[in-house]
């Protein structure tokens, strides 16, 4: 027990001695949270719009107004010939172009169907898809003003997050990223550094047991991770006004098995690498990117090919994302989230066992 404490103190002292790491540890998460909270929005607005009005009547102008009056579109250019739209789309200055053909007003007044041409830049598929949807909605409303209605109205009811703000989910997601980066990476590098600098031998001749050494190395970084989350949480709750509908206690308890996994992965990486550079690459490419991409955090899991869906069951962040969504937005607790907690515990135990085995082999 004394030995364990000594390692913890030594590690904390070393952390304090490096003047640049502390600001990095504590400023970085806040910075990440602010950027992500503002940038990570899938709420697509202000799509750059170009208009080519060949009809030039009151009716066509009021349709153009319907487009520019919505927050979905921002008018960047009005041209007189369809050919002038090409360079606008080519350079990306406009993402969507509307052409109102000559005869538009006459067709409508005569009770005939009048067409409007929409041209979307498919190179940005997300904005393209959403932009076309918005445009269709603008046109439908304009049609309705003229007295043409659809016979079935679809009335959407959105649960948990009524104004569909992606920020409400993205911000809790950043908390997960912070925990992951700090615990996994710092643990991995802390152990490899001793090997690289050659001080590992010195540690091994002390009466410390390998378990003491490992746990002693883990604890400081687990603490750093927890402190960081606790300092980032107020920003999420009060600055971004993300609702925390479940209990804080549930959140904290369900975070522990996730940290078990990330700390374990950090250890595993350290047993697999000989230099800090290797440790860094291994964490970044083999353990961090998959967590970001295969967790359902940004890209929906159900869209992935079947093999990848199986692979995601090995990704701890996948379960933690469900937990975060559940506790923050749905307000559910252990009764619903126990399968995720169990999966994290299971993964954590497997990872730690693997790390322990590798560690022993390396010592021997």
């Amino acid at each position: 027990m004394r030995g364990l404490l000594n390692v913890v103190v030594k590690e904390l002292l070393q952390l304090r001695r490096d003047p640049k790491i502390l600001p990095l540890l504590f400023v970085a998460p806040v910075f990440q949270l602010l950027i992500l909270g503002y940038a990570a929005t899938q709420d697509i607005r202000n799509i750059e719009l170009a208009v080519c009005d060949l009809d030039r009547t009151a009716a066509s102008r009021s349709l153009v107004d319907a487009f520019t009056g919505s927050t979905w579109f921002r008018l960047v250019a009005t041209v007189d010939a369809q050919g002038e739209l090409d360079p606008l789309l080519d350079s990306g200055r406009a993402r969507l172009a509307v052409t109102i053909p000559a005869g538009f007003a006459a067709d409508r007044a005569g009770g005939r169907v009048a067409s409007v041409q929409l041209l979307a830049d498919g190179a940005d598929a997300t904005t393209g898809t959403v932009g076309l949807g918005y445009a269709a909605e603008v046109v439908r409303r304009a049609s309705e003003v003229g007295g043409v209605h659809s016979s079935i109205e679809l009335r959407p009811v959105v649960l948990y997050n009524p104004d569909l703000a992606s920020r409400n989910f993205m911000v809790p997601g950043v908390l997960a990223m912070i925990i992951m980066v700090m615990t996994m990476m710092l643990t991995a590098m802390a152990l490899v550094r001793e090997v690289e600098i050659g001080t590992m031998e010195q540690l091994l001749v002390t009466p410390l047991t390998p378990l003491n050494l490992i746990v002693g190395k883990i604890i400081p970084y687990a603490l750093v991770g927890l402190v960081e989350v606790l300092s980032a949480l107020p920003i999420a709750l009060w600055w971004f006004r993300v609702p925390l509908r479940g209990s804080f206690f549930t959140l904290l308890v369900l975070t522990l098995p996730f940290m078990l996994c990330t700390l374990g992965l950090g250890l595993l990486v350290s047993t697999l690498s000989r230099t800090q550079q290797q440790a860094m690459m291994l964490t970044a490419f083999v353990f961090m990117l998959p967590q970001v991409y295969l967790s359902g955090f940004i890209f929906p899991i159900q869209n992935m090919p079947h093999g990848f869906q199986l692979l995601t069951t090995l990704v701890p962040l996948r379960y933690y994302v469900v937990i975060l969504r559940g506790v923050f937005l749905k307000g559910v607790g252990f009764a619903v989230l126990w399968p995720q907690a169990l999966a994290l515990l299971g993964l954590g135990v497997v990872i730690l066992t693997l790390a322990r085995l590798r560690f022993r082999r390396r010592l021997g």
Partner: protein
Amino acid sequence: MIRRTLAIAVKELRQLRRDVRTTLALLGMPVVLLLLYGYALSFDVRHIRLAVVDQDGGRAARELREAFLATDTFDLVSAGNDARALDALFDSGRAQAALVIPHGYGSDRVAGRATTVQLVLDGSDAQTATAVLGYARQIVASAAPVWREPHSLGAIRPVASVWYNPDLSSSRFLVPGLLGFILMVTAVIATALAVVREKERGTMESLRATPLVAIELLIGKTLPYLLIGSVAAAGAIALAWGLFDVPVRGSLLALAAVTLLFLAGGLGLGMLISTMAETQQVAFQAALLISMLPTLLLSGFIFPISSMPRALQLVTHVVPARYYLVALRGIVLKGTGPEAWGMEAVALGIFATVVLLVATVRTVRSL
């Protein structure tokens, strides 16, 4: 000068050759990552878990339900006639959307009256919910005939066409973005440790004793990584073209030139970090923070820049991937020439020059 620069480059290459794992990682990672994520990533909304609550039970209601299930957009997970069952389905995440067809739907349809159906969505995944709502609107619109008020105007019909990527496949749009992301992260990480390693191991002193000047040291250290980066980038681009159906409609030469500028910027940024950090641990943290997050978030790769707040849009101007993505999508998907992305190429050049200059100044001071 050239001889000394080359000497450093050769030394760095030798060190790389001894560290096989790192070299292989730098060479192979872009291809492996692209292969992995190119398949996995997609925003195409498919297989949404749909619950149907049919309180009407008539033929018209069944037809609407079939219209939802006809494509692979929706998978039926539960069908019933009690809306109270939905709470548990949504709480546990077993359903992402629910279609509620109210009692009287069938008779309204038969009588030609306007009627309403309800779509319940799980908003905790805002992005999927938005897309699902769009799909549902289309399905309902095509299932419903229009009705007109007396003396109504003619309806307006939107005729949509899509350029450059007609089937709006999200992978054709994401793969170039992914390419930029992977190249940036690999480049920054490759050089971020290059100088700080010498500092940490104490070999900086021996370098200081040689007649090297700062710029020779930096360029010499950057060159091997530029070489490795180019090979890796070529492999990744070939893979995107061959496997992911990303066409290269513009000129290959332009593609190579823009990619080299982008790589130089990334490697320069890594160098800058390396000259500022004292330990590899700090350098690595900074490298990840500076390369990964902005490239993922502020480049237009996943999140559209036009939707961000004004101040943040200004910040995106110092993210090199932003320019690279415009140029890359231009060359690859649109087949445009320098008239469309010339400014972006210039911006990439400026970025690379500035970071390398600042890194040199920093090194001069420490030498």
